[in-house]
């Protein structure tokens, strides 16, 4: 009798876990779709809010916070008033750090760190360029070290070099090989699950078109 009860209870328990897990995936997919298809501050903010809520309720998943950070970086680029942009970048840092705490030494999170620093630099390139450039590049290098198959680590490293003048160690000459490598890696990239990071390919192609001319 006891046995039955135990089996029964444990199956109920695992079922509810499964249910929770599938609703997590579903919620994530919805938010990712909203993030991917919208280019307005409004919907990116909605997506960011969704990711934040998901992240808070599941606690040990890094992906919601990671995407949340991504949304805030994108909002920053859409905002016109300079002085508010830093606030959104601050938010991106906050959430990416949460992701980092849950999943340390994660290549994707290091790409995001560099991506955020790029955003920070972009607000005031003249005065921040010198300072953030090397930090930014070290993040991408670390991301490559952690997972040499991560195409985004090469793509954003390349973007950084394209945007930096040659006297600061940038330039097309140095960036192009990295961009090619990124495209190669995108070809063979194995997506871990349907909600894992899978962005940047279109941008990489655009960059390739722009600089291969």
């Amino acid at each position, binding site marked *: 009798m006891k046995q039955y009860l135990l089996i*029964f209870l444990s199956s109920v328990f695992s079922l509810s876990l499964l249910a929770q897990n599938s609703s997590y995936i579903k*919620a994530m997919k919805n938010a990712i779709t909203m993030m991917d298809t919208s280019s307005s501050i409004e919907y990116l903010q909605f997506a960011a809010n969704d990711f934040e*809520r998901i992240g*808070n*309720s599941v606690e040990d998943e890094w992906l919601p916070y990671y995407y949340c950070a991504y949304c805030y970086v994108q909002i920053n680029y859409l905002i016109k008033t300079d002085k508010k942009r830093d606030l959104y970048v601050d938010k991106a840092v906050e959430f990416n750090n949460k992701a980092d705490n849950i999943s340390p030494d994660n290549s994707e999170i290091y790409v995001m760190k560099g991506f955020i620093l790029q955003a920070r630099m972009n607000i005031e390139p003249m005065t*921040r360029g010198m*300072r953030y450039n090397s930090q930014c590049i070290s993040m991408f290098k670390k991301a490559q070290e952690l997972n040499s198959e991560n195409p985004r680590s090469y793509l954003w490293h390349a973007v950084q070099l394209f945007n930096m003048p040659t006297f600061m160690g940038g330039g097309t000459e140095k960036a192009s090989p990295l961009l090619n490598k990124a495209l190669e890696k995108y070809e063979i990239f194995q997506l871990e699950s349907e909600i894992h990071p899978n962005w940047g390919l279109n941008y990489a192609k655009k960059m390739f078109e722009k600089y291969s001319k």
Partner: protein
Amino acid sequence: MKKILILFVLITIASITCNAQTTITGKIITKKGEPVMFANIAIKGSFDGTSSNLDGEFSFITSKNGEQIIMVSCIGYQAIEKAILLNEPIVQLDIILKPSVSEIDAVYITAGAFEASEEKRAVNMKSTDIGTTAGALGNIIGAIETLPGTQTVGESNGLFVRGGSGSESKIIIDEMVVMNPYYSPVPDIKQRGRFDPFMFSGMIFSSGGYSALYGQALSSTLILKSKGLADSTNTGGGIHLYGTNVFHTHRWENTSLYTGISYNNFQPYHYLFNIDKYNKSTENTCGKIIFRQKISDNGLFKFYSNISKTELGVDFEEISNPDEKYSFSLENKNLYINSSYREFFKDEKWSLFVGFSYSKDKDNAYLDTVNMSEDEEMMQSKIIVTNNSLSNVTMKVGGEIQSFDVSGKMDNSEGVIEDLFCAGFFEVDWIISQKLATRTGVRYEYSDYLLKWNIAPRLSIAYKVASNSQVSFAFGKFYQTPEKDFLYYSDNKYDYENADHYILNYQWMNNKRIFRIELYDKEYNDLIKDIPDVQNTYNNSGTGYARGIDIFWRDEKTIPLADYWISYSYLDTKRDYRDFPKEAVPDFAAKHNLSFVYKHWVGLINSMVGFSYSYSSGRPYYDPNRPENEFHTDYTKEYHNLDINISKITKLFNRRTVIYSSLRNVLGNEHIFGYHYLPDGNSRIPISPVSKRSFFIGLFISTY
């Protein structure tokens, strides 16, 4: 039995899964009733929630019921949590959010303070602005002298602020005071600061009313914050008209180490430009170590050490006979160590700072055949505990101990000063509302040498009058131990010299443009004064005042890729101190001061081109031919100076290279800072710079 049990379990499960749903609907608003859009509304511990729309309205369905906690957050507002009872199909919920005081919109204390930073955004300057100002030549003090409230004094060391002398300003690095921030003084020749501006990430230049964390400066403090871990491994060096340097920085994961040496010798320069004032051109050798160790996530240990040796010799004209010269020679050895540890504890409610610094400075000088030597040693330790557990309140409490050991010799007479100086301080920063902020502090000091204590209150208030402008007020009392020249005569009993500051400031800041105007009044008391007719006896009966207006305008917006600022200061000051026969304007004070700094990035040649112009009205000088009641009534001629500089960024051997050149006093204006009179008053010689113009060119290369 079995059946009943299964039935019971099934019912339980059903009741868990098929419970009633609740719709929560409402509006998020501010206190004033304005809608808050894009707020995030969530039920704690579940996916359930939504965002508010453009009108601040929201609605969502939840399967939770009973008592739940609802969380609302939005960028720019303080997040809140609220208990809510879900027992009806529709629950109405309106929530009021309070704006959070963000760094950008916040009201902040500006009276008396100019801040430069890399990290903070609501500042007047960026750290890099300091190093790239024309004429400053990488000398921090040179750049500060383009800010309002300062005075260009070309013949002696120190920052002269608002009618204060050079010794009334202190330089503080990582919370600790620097005993010898400048190269040793040479009569009539201003010396450079010892510190490279690029080693700092932040700076607060206070022209009055500064924080209770610091003391012993009647007029001003320049508070510098050194950089943290080095960004990356880097090797480099430079060669310039005055010398050469090499350095290597190594960066590990949590550690960085910089080692560098530099050697300067002005002989080629003096030869090339025919400067014959020196009988021994300045020669300087310097070694530097900067070590950083990350101890924990938010804990950093810093160590800085600088050791240097300088030699030089100067010929001065004999006033009575211009063909004859007398010589001055100086050898200086200096060691400086500054180490500190700062930790932000978990959840950043508490932080701790512990610092230790050591300074040793040996001067050995000859004025003709008269030997003068001075040996100074200082140790300082400081502790600061910061608490942030109340929102919008930051409390700082701490103390410091400084021990001085100074001995001076001149020919056969000798003086020794030993002092153990202690201070304690407490300061509260309270952001009362988005519009109103206060800083209240008190500082206690005791000097073992003077056997006297003092208590100095400090207060600053800032009020935001409009979204881009604010008014601040500061008051403070400031004490300083009399200069060591007087302390040598230890049979005199002294008290601290002191000054009261009253500052009223208005600041407007919008879109890369800043306008500031500041009115101040500084009342000096207990200044050192000669007792007439008895040599080397002094008391504290001197007084003085300084009043004026400082105006600052900076614009980084109007001209693309250009940045300029204008500072103007009006100063009304008089003192009756030292050997003054009556109240008079001191010889370092000019009534009008103006600076104009312009920088332009020229992309075509990858260069930053800049110039700076400064003007001062004449300063009084002492003419012994005048009767006592006409003391300091003669004025030097006006001071005009134009400096230009170009720094070109390029690549050499595929390495990042900067070529820097500057020319001081382009127009060749004559600079006279005062006169030396022969005791009989018949002849005089002007005090002016060693050369009319000065030129610098250098090439700096690094692997990163």
